[in-house]
């Protein structure tokens, strides 16, 4: 296997299964590698290589390098990964490096780029191969514009937004090479140490960035109690709850739920905007949803220019009716 056109995927995993992001990256990596008759490698840090590695191969990898990582280390993940990838690149020169634009990748990518003099494009939503070089399209100016960048170096690096690429259908008959190694001692001696990890207190257990459906509320809710209605709505839809900046600033929702230019960016299949006017600041975080349903009492609200479906009315009447209808349909389907 030539390493000349190898695509290296940084395979993040949780609870010994690849993350959705990782499966997307493997699908993307496979398509890019096939375009240049190259190969796909994946690096994973895991304590369960025997379960994880075959899944990465089924999802598109030709070669999986796993490094044994205990759960109890207080080494700082971006620094740890930086050493591991550096080690890997020394033994196997990958040409293209893909990682998720996650808390890990958004820090790791730029650092790796400067360590290896590699060109980088961050937070990309389209990644293609043209004449042997990566061409990445990414949103900028708060989602008002797109830029298309060609990366001329080897390696070159892209960080990819979640929910922008299709994973392959996993094929357990795919064959690949698996190596299991110990973490280099140096990698564990990160200057930065993790003191404590605190998971979010998201009630529904669905992460905003991964949710297929997001129900978000703004100033038009009129108060914190509006979010209780939205929680029920999100629960009925199997979605997560988000909020506009104003709603967060007013203390109606925690800042961890904020969607927009200075908050999180979500790309669900369906974004339900309740009492949100649709300022460009907010649309920066949700404008790339596949469909937007806007519920607003103001028929002139800017959100209706961006939405695919619109309801003008009082959410206090509309949302309970929607919940009732969704619950009724579910019951019909399961009956």
């Amino acid at each position, binding site marked *: 296997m030539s390493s000349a056109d190898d695509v290296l995927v940084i395979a993040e995993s949780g609870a010994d299964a690849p993350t959705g992001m990782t499966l997307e990256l493997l699908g993307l990596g496979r398509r890019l590698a096939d375009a240049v008759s190259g190969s796909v490698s994946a690096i994973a840090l895991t304590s369960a290589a025997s379960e994880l590695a075959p899944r990465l191969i089924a999802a598109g990898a030709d070669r999986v390098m796993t490094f044994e990582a205990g759960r109890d280390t207080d080494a*700082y993940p971006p620094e740890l990964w930086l050493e591991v990838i550096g080690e890997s690149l020394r033994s196997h020169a990958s040409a293209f490096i893909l990682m998720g634009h*996650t*808390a890990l990748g958004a*820090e790791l*990518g*730029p*650092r790796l*780029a*400067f360590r290896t*003099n590699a*060109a*980088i494009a*961050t*937070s990309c939503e389209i990644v293609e191969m043209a004449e042997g070089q990566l*061409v990445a399209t*990414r949103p*900028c*100016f*708060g989602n*008002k*514009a*797109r*830029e*298309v*960048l*060609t*990366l*001329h170096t080897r390696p*070159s690096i892209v960080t990819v937004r979640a929910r922008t690429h299709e994973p392959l259908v996993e094929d357990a008959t795919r064959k690949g090479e698996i190596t299991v190694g110990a973490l280099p001692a140096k990698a564990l001696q990160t200057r*930065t*140490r*993790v*003191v*404590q990890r*605190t998971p979010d207190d998201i009630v529904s257990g669905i992460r905003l*960035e991964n949710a297929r459906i997001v129900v978000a509320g703004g100033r038009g809710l009129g108060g914190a109690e509006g979010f209780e209605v939205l929680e029920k709505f999100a629960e009925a*839809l199997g979605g997560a709850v988000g909020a506009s900046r104003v709603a967060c*600033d007013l203390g109606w929702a925690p*800042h961890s739920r904020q969607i927009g*230019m*200075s*908050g999180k960016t979500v790309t669900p*299949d*369906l974004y339900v905007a309740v009492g949100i006017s649709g300022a*460009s600041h907010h649309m920066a975080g949700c404008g790339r949803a596949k*469909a937007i*349903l806007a519920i607003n009492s103001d028929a002139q609200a800017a959100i*209706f*220019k*961006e*939405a*695919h*479906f*619109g*309801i*003008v*009315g009082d959410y206090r009447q509309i949302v309970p*009716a*929607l919940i009732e*209808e969704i619950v009724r349909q579910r019951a019909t389907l399961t009956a």
Partner: protein
Amino acid sequence: MNILVCIKEIQNPELPSELFRVDEVKKQLIFFPNASLVTSPFDAQAIEAALRIRDSMSDTKITLITLGPSGSQAALKRGLAMGADAGILVSDSHAQSSGPFETVRKLCHAIRDAGDFDLIITGRQAADFDAGIVGCGMAEVLGIPVLAFARSVRVANGRVVVERVLDDGFETVETPTPCLVTVSNELGEPRKASLRLTMQAAKKPIVTVKAIEVDETQGRRTRERLFIPSRNSDCEMFSQSTPGDIAREVTASLAAMRMI
């Protein structure tokens, strides 16, 4: 403690979409004539993070640095009026076309010349190209640790302690100085300039240094296009007479699209 905060002046990102323009030939932003220039919001929060440290540690000096065309001191002055102590303008006639690799080299060169800093703070990304490359890249070039996406920054026993926003929660991490921290919006509102501080700011020093020329072969990339994607203007309105009727129609439409 000696803190350096990197800031960038940009077109007000709250400019309505209808007024936002790009030059597709030059592949750069067309500044809207009457739009205000502002300090990139995450950078204003970076200044706030530095001020909070100084609030609890009086022996702290805060220096601001920005890369911009000669004479572009407005962002520095706004930061001084918030309470920072000194400013450095790295003057660069190519500032608008400076890519992340060039910007990092220019800033790092100026920072090394400016003295020893215990802590460098930046915003997690500039609210123009939204790339988030420069902060982490500078740390790498300067050879110091970086902690990205801080929602709080404090100093304890000579170490920098940061609460860092993760995809599914947050983590507390600590590192020795010198180090670089990028701050996220969860940090909270930056303070406003007071009249007293604004008047004092006029007397605070701003030095101008010239940006170095950099080798553009490293990290080489080409912007092929910059464009505004077409907007959806086709909203299907549901205006049935009762909430129940609306709910039935909406649910049926969404179900037909397999959205629910």
